[in-house]
């Protein structure tokens, strides 16, 4: 009910804890954990890129950069659109390997032709 550290009222109640943190979906727990850490790295990387985009914007305007300004910066509606597109590209190129169809490679080397790749 009260925050145990500060004794301030929190209006919370006892709850039923889920077991979702224990789940393993891949071959073993290590692979699952690596995937989760990999995702976390992606998030940190995107946070850095976003910060750099704000810094570059102020630098391009020739400003002395006040960290408080960087911290408070809100992208314009246009920037929101381009930044989100950039984020989605980053996610796609980094993580889309997971969507590939997989198969056991065996037997002779394939012989069927497909059309040449578009430029």
């Amino acid at each position, binding site marked *: 009910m009260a925050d145990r550290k500060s004794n301030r009222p*929190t209006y919370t*109640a006892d709850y039923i804890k889920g077991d979702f943190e224990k789940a393993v979906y891949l071959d073993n727990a290590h692979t699952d954990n690596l995937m989760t850490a990999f995702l976390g790295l992606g998030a940190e990387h995107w946070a850095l890129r*976003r910060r750099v985009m*704000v810094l570059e914007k102020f630098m391009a305007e020739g400003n002395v950069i006040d960290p408080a300004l960087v911290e408070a910066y809100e992208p314009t509606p246009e920037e929101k659109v381009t930044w989100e597109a950039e984020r989605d590209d980053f996610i796609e190129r980094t*993580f889309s390997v997971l*969507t590939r169809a997989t198969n056991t490679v065996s037997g002779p080397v394939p012989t069927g032709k497909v059309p040449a790749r578009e430029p």
Partner: protein
Amino acid sequence: MLSRRTILATSAAAAAAVVTAAGTSQASTPSLDIKIDPYNQTAEQKALHTARFEKLDQESLMSFAEGFKSWNGKDLAGRGQRRITNAFLRSKGLTIGRTEIGYEECFNLMLDEPSFAAKIRFNRSAQALMWDRALRAFHGEPDRYLALMEETDNTGPGSLELNPGMHLPDYTVHEIHAQPGGYVGDPFAGWIYHWALTQAFYQARNQYDEVFTAIAQDCPKPDDGQVRRILDLGCGSGLSTMAYKERFPNAEVWGIDAGGPMVRYGHYEAVQRNLDVHFAQRLAEDTRFPDGYFDIVSDYLLFHEVTVPAAQKIMPEIHRVLRPGGVFYHDDSPTIGNPNVPMSLTVYAKARAWEDHRHNIEPWILGYRHADFPALMRGSGFEVDLTIRQNVHRKRAIFGIKPA
């Protein structure tokens, strides 16, 4: 140091003043009805509806979670994925159409398909990332966020009723959608729900509460046009509750929820928006309002989170507190009883539904899916209206009219 929130609060207060002025000038018209275009909001409306983390990095981590969930979601349902799934099912001699195989078995079958397993792993990890990084933002400065709520607990506009000793049925205290602490067990549950979930879950479609504004704007009025009192059941962080007040500034608007931290945040936020809304920690099965008190009762995403027996108690309660001619506006995920939204029962769809139920902790969603919701409404005396309206969720919403 510039505070992100302070900058916004200045324009939010200005915008709120506009809303109040419009309400006051026509106080004699009880059903004043303000049109807001959810998807073309003015700068003031956007400033009012935004929820931004204090720090750029916190916001960026949430932006990643949002983008990742969106990519993973699109891909999971996309054409490439379907081709892989169908080939996989055929290789196992299974149908790609409707199946009688149970939900859990479908999930376990699909896990043998590597891209499905990876997608489930990433879906779960992205959900955990979203909650964890949001929790860290608030728990990193607990005194500050507690103090913000303490400042508004006993001030208006509007009011807050907290009932710390009240009995909470067990079904309400799970860590639903894997939210740490659920709706009742974390002091910042309301903030986290608004600032993390409603941003990331709606995948860039709810940066300015568009979904909630649309829900309120789409609500049909009773035939006589009178809207004096509105009740928002299972109001959570109060986003739709506040949107009702913006649309009907002269109406008495109530939001009730089982979670104390949920309504506490709702009230805090309503004060920031200068909206006179009433929040109370109460149960939907026992609202404690007089008979016939409300013109409109709405619920958004409540019923899939309650048990079938609880739903059977809540429905007559809604009917009781509505006045004759009053409207019940229900919006939640599909059930077998809603002919407007056919339910997919393929191996893939059941596997995903099992993921949501068991791995995302939605303990009651399968019961809700297989309950005939319109029949439940009729059983309590409602006339059911399945007209597809210009609703944000169009086919999903179901309307009940209490006969005059």
